[in-house]
């Protein structure tokens, strides 16, 4: 399951659960009761909710910090220099082998762009900003050979939507 699908399902389930609570409150609102017991119950729920969010959610959030795209190998086996311009991409070289990490060194000659790497199914698999004056280091390992697409994901002017280029992943040795 992709990160996108997991994120969408998690959001859908949480929003549906929240909607169920709201529908329940709406349907029960007509029945008048004293506020004190309702409020006391709400306070209990609030206390439980606080501790659940703190003791369950927070450790998960901290644990997920382990998954990030910022790590850069000291001597990456493959390096690709990426330069963004209004409105085209330059890759040096324009291909990389599967199976071993590729370090994309991404910069821009003019305005902010965003290097968005899409696989053959049209799914976004990695990205980083391309900024003038900065070089962002993105490490990615291609799993399958083929033609990948690079789309600009930071609005950069009139032909932003036309800033599409191809990048080739070749079969790596021993793959």
């Amino acid at each position, binding site marked *: 399951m992709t990160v996108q699908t997991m994120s969408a399902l998690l959001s859908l389930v949480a929003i549906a659960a929240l909607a169920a609570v*709201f529908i329940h409150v709406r349907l029960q609102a007509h*029945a008048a009761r004293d506020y004190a017991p309702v409020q006391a119950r709400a306070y209990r729920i609030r206390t439980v909710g606080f501790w659940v969010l703190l003791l369950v959610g927070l450790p998960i959030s*901290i644990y997920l910090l382990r998954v*990030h795209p910022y790590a850069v190998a000291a001597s990456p086996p493959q390096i690709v220099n990426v330069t963004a311009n209004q409105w085209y991409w330059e890759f040096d070289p324009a291909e990389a082998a599967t199976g071993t990490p590729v370090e994309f060194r991404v910069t821009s000659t003019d305005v902010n762009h965003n290097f968005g790497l899409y696989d053959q199914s049209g799914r976004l698999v990695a990205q980083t900003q391309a900024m003038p004056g900065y070089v962002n280091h993105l490490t990615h390992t291609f799993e399958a050979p083929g033609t990948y697409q690079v789309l600009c*994901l930071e*609005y950069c002017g*009139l032909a932003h*939507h036309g800033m599409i280029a191809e990048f080739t992943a070749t079969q790596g040795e021993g793959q």
Partner: protein
Amino acid sequence: MTEMAMAAGHDDTYDRGRLWVVLYLVTTGVVLLLMMLAGLVMRLAQSGWLALDPELFYQLMTVHGTGMVGIAAFGGAALMWHYVSAYIRLNSWVMGTNFALFVVGVAAILAADLIGGFGGAWTFLYPLPAISQSVWPAWAAELHLGGVLIVGIGFLLLCLEVGRGIIATYGGLSRGLGWHVLFLNAKDNVPPPAVVAATMVVIVDTLALVAAAAILVMSLVNLAFPAVEVDPLLAKNLIYFFGHTFINATIYMAVIAVYELLPAITGRPWKTTRPFLAAWTLSTVMVLVIFPHHLLMDFAMPRWAMVIGQVFSYINSFPVLIVTGLGALAILHRSGIRWNLVSTLLLISMFGWMAGVIPAVVDATIAVNSVMHNTMWVPGHFHFYLLLGLLPMIFAFMIHMARDEDVRAGGGDLTAILYLLFGLGFVAMFLAGGWASVPRRWAEHLAEWMIWDQIASVMAIGVIALTAVFVLIFLARVPRMLHPR
């Protein structure tokens, strides 16, 4: 209500303030509809149903984004002013000054974008305003940025006036946030929820607007003297600090309607408790520090900022979910109310705000942001809590005003339910587009993406029609509202 509040509520200042509130809401309703139509045109173009020159698309995108942020703040400010002026004495000339500056600023922005052709988006990310490959002239960029600066100065004056009023009445902004109650367990001079929220807005918006002014002036200097360059990463930090804080503050202004109206409707008080105050203090700090979640794909940012962007964004959901959201549900639960348009809109607003937080927190997780950032997921989450959170609060306030502030008024709420359904459909298509990796801010979409755009366009028509109903209900009563009471 305190004696001071009673006095403030019945003098000439308050009546003039009410006049400005009505004018603000009229402007909000009209501009909102126009901006929604601009949004619809963009979705139709992405659907392949409307041939639109990309240059015009990006101009409309700039107008839509800038206009929506501005008008959300404008409507929210009117709502906040209306309720807070019942507790503190405010000078209505500030509302008038902000109104005038807003009109001048908006005129400049419209001229820059639609006549000058500026299409640098609301984010005006440095150095895009100055580097467009001659798509727009420098004067258009200068006029747009100058217009935003003028609008910002107006809001800054308004924030300073509300802050002055809070300090004069409660003895300081810390007391406006209720720290004497929170930390010292004091029992006197307890600020009502509306004042606590307004204090938070004053603090965060003042800082946000100063940051905005700084980067706007830097960008203007760069436009006039290109040799004077700005660090692009510093510019980006300033812009997102401003944008993130300012748009969030619009909800913190508008939620005052929930604090004021739900108790009036149900007869159940919304008390200023210590957990409530702790939540608002937490929100004040968090809103200011979590903006790096917009910069998670800027690998040049320091790692600690990324950690804050992820973890603190999650913690920032606590106050919304378990204090304000749960508090609203508790007040409504088994309260014996009969649902009408105002109460249903308020219920929807709390759902929209709370539910919108969920995809926002998901996207603020670095592992997710790596494959969701700047896809349609992003407009998906912020449209969720603006379209279904903020706007229903403002609509509820408008209709409440149109009903002479009579909380007993009945009538049906079908239009609110339909608004919810169309709104859900609309934002779901943004989120689905994000799931499918569709980039945001693209004038032209690939054929395989258009299904999400087409469904969204149909839903948008429904949202706009229902918004027109709410606005017309309000506009029809404006002549009566302007009569002296």
